[in-house]
């Protein structure tokens, strides 16, 4: 065992005293004199063109300070993950004409309190010409489908330098590709071919603390953004981009966050709050409702994974073909990154020498999805572990035994060509079996990740 002084000790969490006395400060406790409140007018339809946005009556309501529209945004188009080279910028802070998901914010009401802002929303005249939405990923991939992205497709283009990791000048593809060994040969050798199609549903992070943000203009032209975020520097960079301001003029402060789980990684609304603050030159606050959390904030994507495995007599997976469809919703956010990560993990903790994996980042007219705890791998682990049990049933092999046989060992090579040097699945499964009272046969007890 380790011989550390402090590491490994169950030191009491220093936050607990504040939590049990209610003195831990959260973003909702931040407030400034003269602070105004924001509410948004949101699209009632998943896809359409804004024909009319008449805010004159709302502007005259006592207590309303400003209605913020796309005209108030210095640099409207952005993409959250520009910092890792994902592009092009495909998302407006506030749309000019096109709305691409139900709930997309069209304009902001900045008023003295939330009730006034809500009353003002009722006075805003919004007309949208509805267009047929793209909601089904398989439909989205068909040539006949309406195209909702400005580059005239419903998929992210990988491999042309846009994902930041591949050199520009490569051939762009509508899918991310992993290819190793010779799958066709592996399938020729198959004793069994096992297929499966797996689907996970979009789910909400649902931290008990919703999205709340306060933006405060500072006397010297700077801006401070107080927000419960997992990535202060992401907020800083994205706000700077859309305000056309140097990042050094923007300070981001996150207090203790009331749960993140990946739902507070994207700067989903800080840009809008920043634009509002700069427009009215006063502190502004936006407290999202739980309804907005469910219907607008990012979710885990729906992901469909189709697997085809070539399996030997002994249940060893000789080769695997995978087709992965990742529902990004209306805008990129972190989805291209998520698809790449998912594809790298499609072999799971198993040794599969021949693979061909294709991952599609599909755009639909749905609230954008993004990172959630276990990003990219939650859906993959679901699919490949169900597939293992399917293989076990087909081959008549015990599900645990099957996993021991296929578990990767050190010095094998992963699907991405990486040498494996930290394998430990066999040992982990042995411990789990022990906890569950399963007596493993001798030959499994003798196996080791070291070879």
């Amino acid at each position, binding site marked *: 065992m380790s011989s550390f002084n402090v590491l490994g000790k169950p030191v009491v969490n220093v936050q607990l005293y504040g939590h049990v006395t209610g003195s831990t400060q959260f973003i909702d406790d931040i407030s400034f004199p003269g602070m105004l409140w924001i509410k948004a007018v949101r699209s009632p339809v998943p896809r359409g063109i804004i024909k009319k946005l008449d805010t004159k009556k709302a502007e005259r309501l006592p207590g309303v300070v400003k209605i913020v529209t796309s005209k108030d945004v210095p640099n409207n188009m952005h993409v959250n993950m520009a910092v890792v080279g994902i592009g092009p910028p495909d998302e407006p802070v506030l749309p000019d004409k096109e709305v691409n998901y139900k709930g997309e914010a069209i304009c902001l009401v900045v008023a003295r309190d939330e009730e006034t802002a809500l009353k003002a929303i009722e006075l805003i005249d919004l007309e949208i010409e509805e267009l047929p939405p793209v909601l089904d990923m398989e439909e989205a991939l068909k040539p006949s489908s309406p195209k909702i992205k400005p580059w005239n497709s419903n998929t992210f283009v990988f491999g042309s330098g846009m994902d930041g990791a591949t050199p520009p000048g490569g051939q762009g593809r509508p899918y991310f590709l992993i290819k190793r060994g010779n799958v066709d040969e592996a399938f020729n050798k198959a004793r069994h071919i096992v297929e499966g199609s797996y689907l996970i549903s979009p789910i909400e992070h649902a931290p008990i603390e919703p999205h709340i943000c306060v933006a405060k203009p500072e006397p010297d032209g700077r801006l401070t953004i107080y927000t419960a975020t997992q990535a202060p520097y992401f907020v800083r960079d994205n706000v700077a981009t859309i305000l056309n301001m140097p990042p050094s003029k923007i300070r981001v402060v996150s207090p203790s966050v009331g749960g993140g789980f990946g739902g507070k990684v994207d700067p989903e609304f800080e840009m809008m709050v920043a634009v509002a603050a700069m427009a009215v030159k006063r502190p502004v606050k936006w407290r999202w409702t739980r309804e907005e959390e469910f219907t607008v904030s990012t979710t885990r994507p729906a992901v469909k994974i189709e697997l085809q495995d070539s399996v030997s007599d002994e249940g060893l997976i000789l080769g695997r073909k995978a087709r992965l469809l990742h529902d990004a919703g209306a805008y990129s956010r972190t989805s291209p990154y998520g698809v790449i990560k998912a594809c790298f993990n499609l072999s799971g903790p198993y040794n599969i020498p021949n693979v061909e994996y294709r991952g599609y980042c599909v755009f639909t007219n749905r609230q954008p999805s993004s990172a959630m705890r276990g990003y990219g791998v939650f859906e993959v682990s679901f699919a490949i572990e169900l597939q293992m049990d399917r293989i076990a049933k087909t081959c008549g092999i015990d599900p645990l035994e099957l996993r021991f046989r296929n578990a990767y060992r050190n010095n094998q090579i992963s699907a*991405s060509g990486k040498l494996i040097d930290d394998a430990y699945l066999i040992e982990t499964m042995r411990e789990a079996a022990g906890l569950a009272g399963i007596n493993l046969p001798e030959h499994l007890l003798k196996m080791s990740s070291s070879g």
Partner: protein
Amino acid sequence: MVKLRGRGLAAINYPTGMNLGGDPSQTIIFAQPDGRFVMCVASVELGQGLRTALAQIAAESIGIDPEQIEVRFGDTEMAPHDTGTFASRTTHRMSNAIFAAAQEIKQIILDVASKIMETTPSDLEISNGKVYVKGVPDKFVTVQEVVNKAQFVYNTPVVGKGFYVKPKSSVDPDTGEADPHSTMAHGCTIVDVEVDTETGIVTVTDVYTVYEVGRIVNKNLVEGQIIGGLVMGLGAALTETVYPRYPSLDYQTTSFQEYVLPTAGDVPRIRYKIIENPTATNVFGIKGVGEMVVNSIAPAIANAVYNAIGVQITELPITPEKVLRALEQKKEVTNK
């Protein structure tokens, strides 16, 4: 009313760090006149216990008590750049950066202490908040005294800076060849369920779950992640969906009344174990754990239901409707 029992498992791995790397972390540690330290990170305390875990790592790295370190977080003008608190990256990357910063602090402490104790830095070591002459435990001066004298007698700032990045990996566009992660952590979850054939309701009765985390920083914090992740996985497996009729937008959930989360009474009996397999990519062997703990639960439950009813439900969440439809389907097949 028949209750069918089943057991299922899932064996997983999970990468540590942002996919493909290129996600730097930095920290600055500085001392205050009374000898306590302030460590500044742009990471964020989300409830995972970052303030405590990072203080333990800094304390271990310098040779002092965690109570001697105040962790300031989340402010872009109080801490240098950190990529963000996600992708199970913080403890791994930040601890490497903290260790580097600690080495600078230690060097300053040893230099100043060597002047106070009239010896050479190589004769000294730091442990338990004291600077000892090696092998002579009662010849020491406290770190607090050294730090105070450093600033007010020897005119030396006591500041350390640390930086860590896993360099960004290239990706071959035709094969996907790349170095996507620093290291892999592992997990295995075995689940026992009861399926009510009349209502379709799945009850998880027992969970046996093991996670390999590289190196344990704080068992309480790891337990918090395991149990919390388990219950999050339980909801994802059985009840949670924002679009119940996906891909249709119909019945989109708008409240906790419609979006069903587990409550205290829904938690099964849990037996867990945390094991270690230190990684060479971190100074202490630490791997990320915060996300992996969700991923092994839903497939284990799905496989347990498969074992119980003989039909594999391949779509989440495994609602009573889906179970009843699967049982109907099975009856039709057996009747043919």
